[in-house]
């Protein structure tokens, strides 16, 4: 079927075919403008305003930024944020990978049934899930009550209002993202490769280590970057479950704006958060491109 082609396959391809076609578009891309205008007015422009404010607009001063770097508290919170995000990402990866692996390699029917365990929590309200964790981890909550009644402990364990609580809650929210991204990458791995390795004498573990794992690497990178970036900006979960030690940068921003009404500082912190986010995104994209270049298109 060469003389006629289908036009435009997907978001980023053009439209030229070697058959009857409408290579020059019949309508322009003007249809996208309403949304783009809304985005520019209510998204890009406010963000630019924040940027300007961080430099003390209408004046120009780097006071806010120097304050951030001078006062150790902010640096500590940022470190804490990065640390918590790293832990959450690691947990999601270590525990999410086996689940994704199971979903990718199981039979289609089993896979479709099991994926509900991932998708239903994914689609449930954030507050509902955080509330549930408060119930589970509280001093009189599920875990402590169960441990007490089993006689393992006498005093309740402090599982809530600290880093542990924040991590537990955030991992719960972000695990589905990691699993779904890994699953998508794994589904792209050809079945026949495993059979080939087998026929060549590889043990299952060797086949996994040398074939499946490397081929799933792009998914690992993409999932990790996504989860890390999302945990950086988390507000609700650490605010509810994190208490003092689980303080993250977003909470500091909120405090500056809402309670202290210190706009330049809040704005500066926001910009810093944004910058870190984009740096990570860039690193992830660079890593993906480097891998693709190294191995050719996988």
């Amino acid at each position, binding site marked *: 079927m060469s*003389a006629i082609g289908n036009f435009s396959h997907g978001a980023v391809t053009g439209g030229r075919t070697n058959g009857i076609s*409408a290579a020059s578009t019949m309508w322009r891309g003007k249809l996208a403008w309403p949304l783009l205008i809304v985005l520019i007015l209510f998204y890009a422009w406010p963000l630019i305003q924040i940027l300007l404010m961080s430099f003390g607009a209408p004046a120009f001063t780097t006071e806010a930024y120097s304050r951030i770097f001078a006062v150790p508290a902010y640096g500590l919170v940022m470190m804490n944020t990065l640390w918590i995000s790293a832990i959450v990402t690691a947990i999601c990866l270590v525990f999410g990978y086996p689940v994704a692996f199971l979903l990718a390699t199981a039979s289609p029917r089993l896979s479709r049934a099991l994926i509900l365990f991932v998708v239903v929590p994914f689609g449930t309200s954030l507050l509902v899930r955080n509330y549930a964790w408060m119930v589970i981890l509280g001093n009189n909550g599920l875990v402590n009550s169960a441990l007490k009644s089993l006689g393992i402990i006498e005093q309740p364990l402090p599982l809530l209002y600290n880093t542990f609580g924040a991590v537990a809650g955030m991992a719960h929210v972000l695990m589905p993202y990691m699993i779904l991204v890994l699953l998508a990458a794994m589904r792209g791995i050809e079945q026949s490769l495993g059979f080939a390795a087998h026929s060549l004498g590889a043990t299952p573990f060797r086949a996994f280590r040398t074939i499946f794992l490397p081929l799933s690497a792009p998914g690992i990178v993409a999932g990790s970057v996504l989860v890390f970036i999302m945990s950086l900006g988390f507000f609700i979960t650490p605010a509810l479950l994190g208490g003092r030690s689980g303080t993250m940068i977003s909470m500091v921003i909120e405090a500056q704006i809402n309670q202290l009404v210190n706009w330049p500082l809040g704005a500066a912190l926001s910009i810093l958060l944004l910058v870190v986010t984009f740096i990570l995104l860039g690193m992830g994209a660079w890593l993906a491109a480097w891998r693709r270049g190294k191995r050719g298109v996988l």
Partner: protein
Amino acid sequence: MTKQPISAAGAKAGARIQFERVSKRYGQLAALDDINLTIEAGEFFTLLGPSGSGKSTLLSLIAGFDQLSAGAILVDGQRADDVPPHRRGFGVVFQNYALFPHLTVEENVAYPLRARRMSSQEVRDRVADALRQVRLEGLGQRYPRQLSGGQQQRVAMARAVVFRPRVLLMDEPLGALDRKLRIDLQVELKQLHRELGATIVFVSHDQEEALALSDRIAVLRSGRIEQVDTPSGLYRHPTTPFVAGFIGESNFFAGILRRLREAAPVVELASGIRVPAAAGSGNDGEAVTLSVRPEQVAISPVMDVMSLAGPIIEIIYVGTATKLLIETQCGRAQAWVPAQGGQEFQIGQIVALRWAPDAATLHPRRCDER
């Protein structure tokens, strides 16, 4: 369903299409280069060529799906290229039919009539007529995905002709079908043409199909027209080696033309072999490529050491003829012997090849050709 005699139909129903210096470029690439062509009203005209020759591009331009880079397209004398496609009123049949999957067969066929705001009654009548014409009555309520490929093809045709267009554009409409079905539909297509009287512009890469269906054919290659002629004209008198090779099959021999004063002109091939050339050929010493059709080549026992000859290396029986592949002194050649000939052949048998002088065509030979 109205049957009209061809001449009257041609005068009223078909439109005349002219291409004046038409070009289409994509960046540096010229898909079509300076096309000049006139398609007469009511003709069945085929654009024939290999992939990438520009034939589908030309069809897109007529339909209005694409813009010209240069030149003009005139329909019945009026410029058509500044009219948007939905106002040109040409019927188009796509290779993969482009039937609307969410509409029934009837709704598909009724689509152009509703777009023209016809009354419901007339729409119903015309759709019923059209379905009867393509022998799909009773299937009106089905959806395209419930039909076979051949049936879908017929719905596509019915939809394209139900509003009686003056021009029908077809982009390899039979390409996705198997051979037997394709031949049946070719016959129906010819009948349809006679009944409609419209001008049909047909795109194909299959030269057999083109020869069977067309009044005239334009052979395209790399965006240019190689030759425009009737089927028999193209077959018997191809003007370039490309056309000779693309239409039907040909043997090609490189050689030098020799005109000796009193004798008939001959072409001197490699190894000094001489073969006759037609009377009106060119000048002495000209480098030429000689093309001759396999069915024009006669096989005989070798009688003269200077004749074109060699062992048979392959015998292929195709029912109506026997195809022989012979390794001659000047390369491989094909000869087709009719089944009734009664001759028996064996691999390895040495035979001589002969043909009538005017059965071969001579083409000037350029360095880049064989």
